[in-house]
């Protein structure tokens, strides 16, 4: 792609990110207020996860363009994409198999464990990135994002927990912590990217 073509049509990862977050919020709201019933929310979440692939591809292009890429970040992106792909396949397969094997079956154990493995892989991928990144500004940006993600999880969990205790909001599955943490990480990375953008 030529330089003029890149400037005319620059990658816009935030469009994909906004679409992803908006969809997730709408699905969560529809599920919480019983507008849709399982497995519809699960299928919608799985479909929405597909948006992460173009988002990461656009983010990678943008990082290359603005000089925010490092060898460790390239490896991280590849590993994260692989984990996300395996996760999506495991979730789609699990969502379908759940209704085939039925409640109480011991086969539910492997169905539940399989999507956990790529998520644990994501956590390991992040750990490796923090270890491997030699560019201290990029590492500082990633660590700050992880801390903001943690703050978001603590605030959301604490507020929701008390609301739930008094029956004001319904119970939600605990795996919400990972996407909420990732949203905090992603938003901070986008905001901190501005610190090093313009020459």
């Amino acid at each position, binding site marked *: 792609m030529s330089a003029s073509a890149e400037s005319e049509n620059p990658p816009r990862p935030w469009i994909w990110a906004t679409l992803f977050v908006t969809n997730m919020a709408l699905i969560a709201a529809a599920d919480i207020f019983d507008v849709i019933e399982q497995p519809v929310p699960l299928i919608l979440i799985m479909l929405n996860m597909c948006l992460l692939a173009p988002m990461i591809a656009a983010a990678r292009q943008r990082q290359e363009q603005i000089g925010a890429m490092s060898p460790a970040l390239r490896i991280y992106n590849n590993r994260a994409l692989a984990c996300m792909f395996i996760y999506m396949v495991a979730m789609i397969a699990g969502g379908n198999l759940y209704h085939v094997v039925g409640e109480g079956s011991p086969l539910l154990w492997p169905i539940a464990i399989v999507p956990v493995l790529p998520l644990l892989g994501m956590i390991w991928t992040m750990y490796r990135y923090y270890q491997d990144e030699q560019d*201290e*500004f990029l590492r500082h940006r990633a660590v700050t994002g992880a801390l903001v993600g943690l703050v978001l999880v603590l605030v959301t969990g604490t507020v929701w927990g008390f609301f739930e205790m008094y029956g004001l909001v319904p119970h939600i599955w605990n795996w919400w912590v990972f996407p909420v943490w990732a949203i905090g990480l992603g938003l901070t990375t986008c905001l901190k*990217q501005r*610190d*090093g953008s313009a020459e």
Partner: protein
Amino acid sequence: MKNRLKVLRAERDWSQQDLADRVGVSRQSVNAIETGKYDPSLPLAFTFADIFEMPIEEIFLRE
């Protein structure tokens, strides 16, 4: 912390990317340091000093 990176770069006719390549960091890092949004570690500040062949205190200054 203030710094004279922009001036020193201009004297050598280096872009941020040129300096980043010499130091071994991303262009974003150079920009963040140059604009005072990120203070480099001591080892990285020494690397800048080596590249410009100047003492650290002539590149990075107190506020």
